[in-house]
Structures are given as structure tokens and as C-alpha cells.
């Protein structure tokens, strides 16, 4: 009977060889996954046997002789309760199936950080047949505490089979009976990153394929316009100029789209170096002088007596200035003046680009730096822009740790400003700086993202490259983070780092050496695959504290 239990059981308490109470207990012990109502019957006098039966786990009773109407009424009642139970079970199973069939790993931790629930993907990724996940701490399952994981911008997790994958985490917090529950959803980004890479390669190919014919088109037009094929009649000259201008517009559009794809995918590599902006601004003015001259606009540059060093990427800073200058020139009338000012104080620098154009309406100002935004839909045609320039400019400035904005009085010109925090001297930088030597470009990009907000970062692919960079060839960095991978003999490399750092600290951040090697060299070591941003920052803090105690 117990192999296929009935929906309900009628049980007489008086049976020849087994007491009714024992039967109740046995049934309760063996049918545990669902509720089986047990109604006991007896002709014994008094309530005592029934009370005893209920204590042993019976649900209800009937006095013999049985009243058929009462029995039917009770069966009807239990039938209703049982069907309600069946519906609840089906609903729970359905929820469980949905939870299990989510392709991301879903885990719920209780207030103590212990795993309460894990869906099938979570079990497959992080569990094993011998290690049950339930009840384990987040750190044991995922290698770090919940808060630590959520703080890292770039999480890499390790599966039970050892494979490390880039992950995106989202956390939902809710309460159950007043206790906080954390439901963590983990998405494997391997495939998405693969697609991003394919997109990059595709864009690189497309841009190459577009630029090749454009080279011939613009080249031929340029040669025609300069009279290399004979002097053109004036109408032909005008037409050539139209074709050339639009070819150049197309060329800028290709550049913008490539930049945009790299910036939005966070794959643009910047070489931030402490630089004085004076020279860069002079270069920017020179590079845009031709355009200004053709538009009949005068360019002016006002520099302070002394200017601070700012950590920027020279090429990208020039691109920012080119965008701001061409924008200002574009919106100026012949005879107007565009002025560039560099203001410098102990907190940093501010670059202003001021024009005498029509200015920007207050309604549009908040949207200036958004994608495809232009004051007027027809403006892009009239002024020849793509609507991407200021958006890219803002992204570049922000990636270099700066801020950008605009002030304007309609009718009285606009003033675009860019600010960077800086310092008077490299060695007294407000933000501590560190040198990262790593031949792996991905690792350099990751560290730039992780440490960018806290450190002025100088990176190089090899020590030889550091030597070649002014002004760093002479300066001793307070901290060097380095990977001996692909740098020749690891021991020689570490010795060279030591000499380079002198009073500073060297940290090995590498998968190509191990703890034993690091101990042999007497250097702290962090493995790349399993070190989180928080761990790296804390190691750097320790190193900075040590470096400040060492005599220089």
C-alpha cells in the first residue's frame, strides 16, 4: 500500500495484531513528501482513544457506527483541502523549474552569507557531486565575499572545473520573516566578450576597406584642386572642393565610429603620462590653424606663467582639443576670434575654449554631450558634423580622469571647459603614482580601470620602454607592479626592477611565477587570475606604507 499511498485513509483503531496508533506512526514516517489525511474510527466508549490517536498523528475521527452523512461531508471537506494542496505543489514545482532553467547562475544567500538556494546552473558551475553547496559561505563558493565581488568592476570567477570566466553580477535584496536575503545572479560574459572582439575586428576591417577607396578619392581630388593636373576652371574648382569636403567628412565619420566602438566597449587604451599642457595646447592650435584660416577665424592662446603637470594621453588630449576647436570655429563667423585659455592652480588645470558664436540655448545645454545630439536637427547638415564629436570628447576627457562642461549666454558665444586634477611636480603628485610593467595589453587595460581612480598610472610593455620614456627615465616610482612573463629571465627582470625602484616597492602581479619564486626574490606576489581589485588595492596600500618608511 505504501508504494502507492491512497489520498485519504480510514483506520479502525482496534485491529487483531497491530495497534492503530503504530499504524499511524508508520504511515507518517513513510509518507513524508505529502500530506495523507488519516481518519480513525472506533466503537470504544469515551473520547480518550481518539485524543490518543490525534496525538499519534491522526487528523480526524468518526464514532462507530459511522454516520454515512457525516462521513460524506468529511470526505468532501478533505477532497477540497487535498486539491488545494495539489495546486500549491504544482505551483511550487513550476517556480522551481523556472528557477532551475534560468541559464545564469542564481544563488540566494542568507543574512549570515550562507548559501540557501542555488539553481541548476549554479550547481553545475560551482558545485560538484561530492561537495554540496548549500550552507557554504559566499567566499567558499565564489572565492570572495559578496560585498567585495560587487565592488569590483571586472569580476573573474572560477568554476569547479578550474575554468576562469569574466562575470557580470546583479544582486537583489529582499526580506524573509524579517531576515535579509541576497539573491545573486551571475552571468558568464565569455561569449559576449568574444562577440565584442569579433565586432572590433569587423569594424577594423570595415574601416580599412572604407579608407582604401577613400584614399584614392581624396587623393585624386586633392591633386586636382592643387592644380597638379592643370589649372581648373572656377566652376570645376568649386565642384572639386565640394567633393573633397564631403570625402573628408566621411573620413571623420569612420574615425568617430571606430573611436565610439572602442570607448563604449571600454577597449580604448590610454597612455596616461604626467605632461605640461602648454606645449600640447600650442600643438593643438597649430594643427587647427589651417581650418581657422579658411573660416576667417583668429585663434588665440593664453598661457599661465607656470602650469601644473596633468596625467593625460597626449594623442587623445589633442583629439579633445581638435574637437573643441573645430566646434568653436564651425560656429564662428568670419572675423570672429576663438580663444584658448589655460588656467592652472594647485588643484589642477582648467582649459577653456571661448568663441563669439551664437551660443547655446539653456534647454539644449544639458544634452550637448550626448550621442547624436545637435542643437537643431538641420544643424548637422548645415555645420557638417556627425553629432558624435562632443560625445566622444566627453568620453575621452572622463577616461583621462577629467571633467567637461559648457557655459554660454545665447547670442554672446560659448565657453567649453575641461578640468583635470594635477600637481606641480611628478614626484609630489597629489595622487600617488605607480609604474605597471606588463607585456599583456589586456592586463594593462584591466589595471588602468581598477587603479585609475586611486593612482596616476604609468605603464609600459617592458623595462626598456620605461627607459625610453621621458621624464620617467630619471624618476624612481614609489611602486612598481610587474609581470615577469615574456621579459626574459624572471630573476634578472626582478633584479632590474629592484634597481629601478630603489626606495620603492615592487609587487609581482603574475601567473607566470609562483609563491616560492616570490619568496626567493623577497617580493610580494599576487596571482592575476584570482586577485580582486580590493585585494590589489590593499596590497598597494601596504606597499605605499612600506615605501614611505624606507629611506630614499
Amino acid at each position, binding site marked *: 500500500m505504501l508504494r502507492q499511498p491512497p489520498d485519504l485513509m480510514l483506520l479502525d483503531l482496534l485491529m487483531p495484531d497491530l495497534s492503530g496508533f503504530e499504524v499511524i506512526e508508520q504511515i507518517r514516517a513513510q509518507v513524508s513528501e505529502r500530506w495523507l489525511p488519516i481518519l480513525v474510527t472506533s466503537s470504544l466508549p469515551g473520547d480518550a482513544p481518539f485524543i490518543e490517536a490525534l496525538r499519534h498523528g491522526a487528523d480526524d475521527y468518526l464514532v462507530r457506527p459511522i454516520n454515512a452523512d457525516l462521513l460524506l461531508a468529511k470526505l468532501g471537506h478533505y477532497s477540497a483541502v487535498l486539491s488545494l494542496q495539489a495546486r500549491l505543489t504544482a505551483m511550487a514545482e513550476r517556480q522551481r523549474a523556472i528557477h532551475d532553467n534560468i541559464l545564469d547562475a542564481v544563488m540566494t544567500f542568507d543574512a549570515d552569507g550562507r548559501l540557501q538556494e542555488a539553481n541548476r546552473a549554479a550547481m553545475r558551475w560551482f558545485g560538484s557531486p561530492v561537495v554540496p553547496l548549500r550552507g557554504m559561505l559566499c567566499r567558499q563558493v565564489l572565492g570572495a565575499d559578496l560585498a567585495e565581488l560587487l565592488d569590483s568592476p571586472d569580476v573573474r570567477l572560477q568554476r569547479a572545473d578550474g575554468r576562469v570566466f569574466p562575470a557580470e553580477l546583479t544582486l537583489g535584496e529582499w526580506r524573509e520573516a524579517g531576515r535579509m536575503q541576497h539573491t545573486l545572479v551571475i552571468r558568464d560574459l565569455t561569449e559576449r566578450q568574444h562577440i565584442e572582439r569579433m565586432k572590433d575586428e569587423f569594424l577594423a576591417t570595415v574601416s580599412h576597406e572604407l579608407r*582604401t577607396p577613400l584614399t584614392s578619392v581624396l587623393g585624386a581630388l586633392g591633386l586636382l584642386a592643387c592644380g597638379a593636373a592643370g589649372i581648373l576652371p572656377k566652376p570645376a574648382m568649386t565642384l572639386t572642393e565640394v567633393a573633397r569636403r564631403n570625402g573628408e567628412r566621411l573620413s571623420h565619420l569612420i574615425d568617430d565610429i571606430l573611436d565610439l566602438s572602442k570607448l563604449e566597449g571600454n577597449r580604448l587604451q590610454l597612455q596616461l603620462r604626467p605632461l605640461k599642457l602648454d606645449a600640447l595646447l600650442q600643438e593643438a592650435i597649430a594643427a587647427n590653424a589651417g581650418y581657422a584660416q579658411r573660416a576667417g577665424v583668429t585663434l588665440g592662446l593664453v598661457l599661465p606663467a607656470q602650469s601644473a603637470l596633468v596625467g593625460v594621453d597626449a594623442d587623445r588630449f589633442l583629439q579633445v582639443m581638435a574637437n573643441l576647436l573645430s566646434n568653436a570655429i564651425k560656429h564662428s563667423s568670419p572675423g570672429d576670434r576663438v580663444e584658448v585659455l589655460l588656467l592652472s592652480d594647485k588643484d589642477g588645470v582648467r582649459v577653456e575654449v571661448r568663441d563669439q558664436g551664437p551660443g547655446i540655448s539653456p534647454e539644449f545645454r544639458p544634452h550637448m554631450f550626448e550621442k547624436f545630439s545637435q542643437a537643431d536637427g538641420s544643424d548637422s547638415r548645415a555645420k557638417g558634423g556627425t553629432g558624435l564629436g562632443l560625445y566622444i570628447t566627453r568620453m575621452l576627457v572622463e577616461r583621462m580622469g577629467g571633467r567637461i562642461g559648457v557655459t554660454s549666454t545665447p547670442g554672446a558665444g560659448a565657453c567649453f571647459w575641461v578640468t583635470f586634477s594635477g600637481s606641480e611636480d611628478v614626484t609630489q603628485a597629489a595622487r600617488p603614482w605607480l609604474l605597471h610593467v606588463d607585456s599583456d595589453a589586456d592586463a594593462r587595460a584591466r589595471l588602468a580601470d581598477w587603479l585609475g581612480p586611486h593612482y596616476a598610472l604609468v605603464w609600459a610593455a617592458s623595462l626598456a620602454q620605461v627607459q625610453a620614456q621621458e621624464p620617467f627615465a630619471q624618476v624612481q616610482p614609489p611602486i612598481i607592479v610587474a609581470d615577469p612573463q615574456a621579459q626574459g629571465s624572471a630573476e634578472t627582470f626582478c633584479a632590474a626592477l629592484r634597481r629601478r625602484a630603489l626606495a620603492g616597492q615592487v609587487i609581482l602581479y603574475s601567473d607566470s611565477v609562483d609563491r616560492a619564486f616570490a619568496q626567493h626574490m623577497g617580493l610580494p606576489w599576487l596571482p592575476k587570475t584570482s586577485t580582486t581589485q580590493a585585494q590589489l588595492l590593499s596590497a598597494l596600500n601596504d606597499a605605499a606604507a612600506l615605501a614611505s618608511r624606507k629611506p630614499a
Partner: protein
Amino acid sequence: MSELQRVMCVEDDPDIRMIIEFSLLNLGGYEVCLCAGGPAALVQAPLFRPELVLLDVMMPGMSGPQTLAALRQLPVMRGVPVVFLTAKAMPDEVEDLLKYGATGVIVKPFDPVTLPQNIRIYWEHGRDIHAR
């Protein structure tokens, strides 16, 4: 010899070859040797004895860097500056190209009007390095 005279151009796109020839010949007044790819350049270099090579990066078969490596094996190419022509314009990519030992990188689309003057600057720069 104080002036640049013989320029070799290795470029697989025939139209770009024509633009370069027009620019270097008519505006620059140089002697020009055009090659459609690396193999042709290797044959032509000992005969033409270029003083500067303009070399496309992305070419089918032998790439620009591969061609550069092969050209460097020729005695006649010792100390001859090579300038890459590329449609890839990201700064890190330009730096990578310079690592191959090129004197400079010219990004496409380039201006054929200023090209003769620009390559002369690269040639002088390359000659300075060699003289040191």
C-alpha cells in the same frame, strides 16, 4: 648625395599606386618605382636601389611587416628608411608598427599634395639616425 631622388612604393591597390606616382613624380620630382606587392619589391630593390621605401601594411600574401623583414636582408637596403602606409589609425597600432623598425607611419587617407615633402622629412630623419 644631399637630396632624395629614388623612392620605391609597395602598395597592392592600383589606384592608390597611381595617386602616389602622380604625387611623387609630378609634385616631388622623384624617380619612382612602383611594386604591387612584397615579392615584386624584393626583385626590384637591388635593381632600383631606392633611397626610401613607402610600404603598405595590409597586403594579401606578404604583409608590410613581412616585406620589411625580407627587404632588410638585402645589402642594398642597409640604412634605407622605410615608411609604412596604413589605414589603421589607432595610436597603439602606430606604435606597434614603429617597433618593426620603420622610420615613420603615414595614415590613409593621406594628402598627396604634402606627401613628397613629408617623405623627404622622414628620409632626412632616417639619414640622421644612420649617420649617428
